[in-house]
């Protein structure tokens, strides 16, 4: 018994403090949780709304669609459906991941309702070199995707980026990153199309 007393004498502060701090943290979390969740949702929604401008709300069309990224690796991603105020589906959007120059690149890609035309893509997260690969977020590059056909895209070093077709002109000095985006695109788009077809959505 003496030992217990000794222990309490020595450590009561830590024990009490950890309990109180635990509560404090949990209470804060509980009260802000809705906002945090909302923020997360908003982020994706905002990006998607950026591409599908008319969309009013988004909901998951296919949950955990399995995408084969090559080398036998399977990735799960949600396919969202963009809804107009009247409930009409405007298009689909999904998060795609692949390796860039330095690290993984996470994109949000949006297509039209038939998955035939691309509305565009936005970078959700990337770690490309500033001044080099970081240029994949610039309009020069992203605009080429707006309206591009949702088929296998081709990369090219030369050409006119203003012409919207399946040819994507690389950013000079960041060929690797530019190619990476296209590669991610190509890997995902066909399989997404297939998933949507399986679900009978297109």
């Amino acid at each position, binding site marked *: 018994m003496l030992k217990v007393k000794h222990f309490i004498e020595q450590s009561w502060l830590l024990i009490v403090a950890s309990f109180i701090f635990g509560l404090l943290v949990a209470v804060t979390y509980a009260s802000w949780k809705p906002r945090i969740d909302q923020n997360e949702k908003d982020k994706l929604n905002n990006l998607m709304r950026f591409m599908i401008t008319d969309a009013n709300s988004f909901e998951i069309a296919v949950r955990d669609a399995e995408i084969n990224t090559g080398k036998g690796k399977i990735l799960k991603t949600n396919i969202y459906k963009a809804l107009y105020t009247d409930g009409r589906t405007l298009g689909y959007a999904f998060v795609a991941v692949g390796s860039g*120059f330095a690290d993984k690149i996470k994109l949000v890609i949006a297509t039209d309702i038939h998955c035939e035309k691309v509305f565009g893509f936005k970078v959700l997260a990337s770690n490309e070199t500033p*001044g*080099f690969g970081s240029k994949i977020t610039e309009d020069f590059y992203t605009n080429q995707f707006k309206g591009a056909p949702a088929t296998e895209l081709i990369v090219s070093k030369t050409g006119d980026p203003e012409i919207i077709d399946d040819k994507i002109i690389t950013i*000079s*000095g*960041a060929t*690797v990153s530019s190619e990476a985006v296209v590669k991610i695109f190509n890997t995902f788009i066909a399989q997404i199309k297939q998933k949507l077809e399986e679900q009978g959505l297109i």
Partner: protein
Amino acid sequence: MLENIAVSSSPHISKPLSTRTVMLDVIIALVPAMIAAVIFFRLYAVTILLTCIVTAVITELICNHIRKKPNSLGDLSAILTAILLALSLPPAIPLWAVIIGTAFAIAIGKMVFGGLGANVFNPAMVGRAFLTASFGMLMTTWTVPATINPEMPTITESVKSTDIRTQATPLAKSKEALKGKINASVANNLIKDAFTGQIGGCLGETSTIALLIGAAYLLIRKTITIHIPLAVLISAFIFAGVAYLINPDAYISPLTHLTTGGMLLCAFFIATDPVTAPLTTKGMWIFGIGVGAIVMLIRIIGEYPEGIMYAILLMNAVTPLIDRLCRVIPVGGIPNAKS
């Protein structure tokens, strides 16, 4: 009584050799490469070389002034650094970038460490690395040499317009071959042009023959020893050779590797920078092999077409460790700990 008698420690005579003569030798050895640069890149070469030298001199003067140190231009090392930096720049780089790079090379690459002899990294490569990191685009634009492009644009044009005639270097071709876009023999065929220098690339690296003349001069004058160049070239050759044997369609031939890019300039003029290379012969071999290996690693596996600069900087970083590892052993062996 004997006011004009001076006393100092032995020895009282010395070899007629000074830092200045050593540096001057290297500058002389670079003359053929500079001439080649002027032949192939005309005004570009001249302006870049001059800008580099002037900036280096001014930067060094300012640094010395701030530190209240005597003028150290006399040892010519700043000028040599400037020349080597200039020779490793692409012809079409705008002059303001040259100024930034040179100032960075001298101030951050050399003077902050205490000036000549104290710097850890090769100043010229520090300057180049900073430029590459900052202005990647400008550093990868390769102008077609004047000898095969009679309407070589003038400087003012090039700064403004992006449509100077450019040309893929053999190493860019090599990268394409690695990705299976073309056959490596396309790059291998450029070797003849590379020998004279009629090819895209940095100012000083294109002409193999000019570099070899300079190298021979340095070796004859005993300004450098053969260890480092040999180690760099042999190790690069072996790596490239193994890759070539595995798949000659994807990997360019070892000889092409040795004659293109900055390999020769690096082996004879940059890796041999005494300040940033190991002191001992054994260390020099390790250093050289390391440089060769990293260059080939970057050229073959890495994302960049060329890796000379990074190889040099990385090996510079480990030079103190190499020196520690390759400590010279006195002729009488290492004495027992007891005595």
